[in-house]
């Protein structure tokens, strides 16, 4: 009953937000939603399957740019297909998946740090393409993002729409789309994790050889999860593009990828809720600090001498949060919440299999 009330309250609050809060909050919230979708994706890969990826930002870029390319009308300078925007969004997610699939010779064979650093190449290579393939991407300045139009309903500022006397512009409309996408992403990921694929993924993480012997095609599964995680990245990219209304290559860099890793560690590895919590934390923290920099001790408003600027404070805090979580909160924020809610404590075991003799990894 308690749970039920909590969920009801949360849902109601989420529905109410656009009626009360201004553009800044809506935009911040929508960025957080996009981050949540992306974080769920990388948590499937890194948290649930144990595959480290530092290239997640690349797939966001693929999703964002593919959406723009598919939906935009071609001009003399910029290419485009002018497809219906809904179709373009779906195709963009598919293209992100295909991009992940093209990486599968690497994604299926490598693991751990090797995969992590190999995926760096996606970021650097990807940005190189984004900067240079100007006909597709608009180069350095990026491209304007066409408004989404679903079944005649436009997620833009026009035509004017007033709900309960509150004007509904792009952000207000996208808010509900964002909520729906996050909810769907969560439900889908839960299904995957609780079902047959999730068991295989967890076993690959916990005991790769056992997974193979039990009939799980390990390399194919690794590649498959990579593709799925890429598609989540692509969807996050599409939503981000819609909120941004412009795609710019600079944004999809190493830092964004690292942010995603920080999100899942802070939130809680391997779970859907953890990914969402971490995404909220990492994407809201800097905005809140900036907004309230005047009233937070030690943090100086930008442009005033002395003190730590909000942007720096946010980075230091979130770096410290990553370290703190790993040292003191093995379950991440999600684990902390579970503890606070006094649920029976979940099992806390080392992430590796406990069998002692498997530690030595080298050839006998």
């Amino acid at each position, binding site marked *: 009953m308690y749970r039920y009330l909590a969920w009801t309250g949360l849902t109601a609050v989420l529905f109410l937000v656009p009626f009360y809060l201004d553009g800044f909050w809506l935009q911040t919230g929508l960025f957080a939603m996009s981050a949540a979708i992306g974080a769920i994706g990388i948590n499937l890969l*890194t948290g649930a399957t*144990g*595959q*480290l990826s530092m290239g997640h930002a690349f797939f966001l870029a693929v999703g964002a740019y593919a959406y723009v390319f598919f939906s935009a009308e071609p001009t003399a300078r910029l290419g485009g297909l002018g497809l219906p925007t809904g179709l373009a969004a779906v195709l963009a997610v598919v293209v992100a998946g295909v991009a992940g699939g093209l990486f599968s*010779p*690497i994604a299926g*064979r*490598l693991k*751990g*740090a*090797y995969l*992590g*650093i*190999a995926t*760096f*190449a996606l970021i*650097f*290579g990807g940005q*190189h*393409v984004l*900067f*240079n*393939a100007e006909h597709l991407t608009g180069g350095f300045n990026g491209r304007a993002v066409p408004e989404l139009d679903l079944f005649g309903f436009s997620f833009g500022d026009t035509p004017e729409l007033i709900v309960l006397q509150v004007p509904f512009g792009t952000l207000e409309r996208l808010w509900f789309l964002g909520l729906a996408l996050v909810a769907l992403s969560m439900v889908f990921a839960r299904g995957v994790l609780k079902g047959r694929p999730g068991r295989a993924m967890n076993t690959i993480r916990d005991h*790769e*050889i*056992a997974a193979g012997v039990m009939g799980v095609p390990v390399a194919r599964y690794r590649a498959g999860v990579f593709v799925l995680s890429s598609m989540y990245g692509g969807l996050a990219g599409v939503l981000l593009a819609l909120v941004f209304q412009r795609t710019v290559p600079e944004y999809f860099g*190493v830092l964004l990828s*690292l942010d995603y*890793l*920080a999100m899942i*560690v802070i939130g809680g*590895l391997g779970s859907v809720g953890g990914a969402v919590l971490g995404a909220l934390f990492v994407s809201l923290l800097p905005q809140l600090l900036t907004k309230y920099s005047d009233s937070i001790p030690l943090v100086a408003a930008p442009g005033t001498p002395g003190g*730590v*600027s909000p942007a*720096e404070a946010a*980075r*230091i805090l*979130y*770096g*410290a*949060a*990553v*370290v703190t979580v*790993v*040292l003191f909160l*093995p379950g991440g924020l999600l684990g902390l919440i579970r503890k606070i809610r006094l649920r029976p404590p979940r099992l806390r075991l*080392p*992430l*590796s299999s406990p069998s002692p*003799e*498997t*530690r*030595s*990894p*080298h*050839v*006998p």
Partner: protein
Amino acid sequence: MTTFVELLVNGISIGAVYALIALGFVVIFKATEVVNFAHASLLLAGGYLIARLWPLVGFWAALLIGVAAAALVAAAIEFLVIRRANVASHSVLAIVTIGVDIVITTELTRQIGTDVLAMGDPWGSQVVRFGGVTLAETRIVALVTAAALITAFLLAFKYTGWGVAMRAAAEDAETAALMGVRLGRVSMSAWAVAGGLAAVAALFLCVFPTPGLDRSTSLVALKAFPAAILGGLDSTTGALVGGLIIGVTESMMSGYQNDMAFLGRGIGDVAPFLVMLVILLIRPAGLFGTKELARV
């Protein structure tokens, strides 16, 4: 031809500096199985101290202090964070070093602010000419120093008690402990050595032809990642070869970018990563890395 030789020599010398960074990276991995993404911040810490201290104590003393301080910071990371992080997953340990990196780098860039800090080195912008080939003196010093440090490191690794303890611990930590090797000291010293090497690398990354150290310096450390990986994360030889490959690739691709304009300009930055991908496709554990084979 002259251009080619110039680019090659330049690539080798900068590659040697990358090798210093990659070597530290590999040493940490061997000793603690941690992929240290905080390496960039160690580099920045060492460089920053050298740059700030040389006006006060002179270049050589500043260099010594900078190297020592970077070593100390690294050892502190090992002692305060890595040792206490009770997680078996290497991915999580890698992510925790990202957190450490963010904290240290943010604080240092805040300190550096908007300055470009000169390193106070005695070589200035002198160049040396061999035939038609010109090479900055700093680059020769970098090459010689890197070669000397790497040689010294490899000799120490091979012949000193510390080196034997390191290798023993890297090969089989438990057995090493059974033989009386103090693993805590070994891993802390590995981090310290890596920090020191990074500080030396920072010096050479910030002297001529670069104008000095500023907040973006730590980004250069990113190039040591492909160097370390393509050589093989657990191979010191690999770090050397990887560093040189990255240095030469970068130099060649930048120098000949006009002849490769079809790849898009600015390919010099991307090329190291592409080379890395190709090598990993053929050898998933890098050129000299040990292929893992689990016991069941």
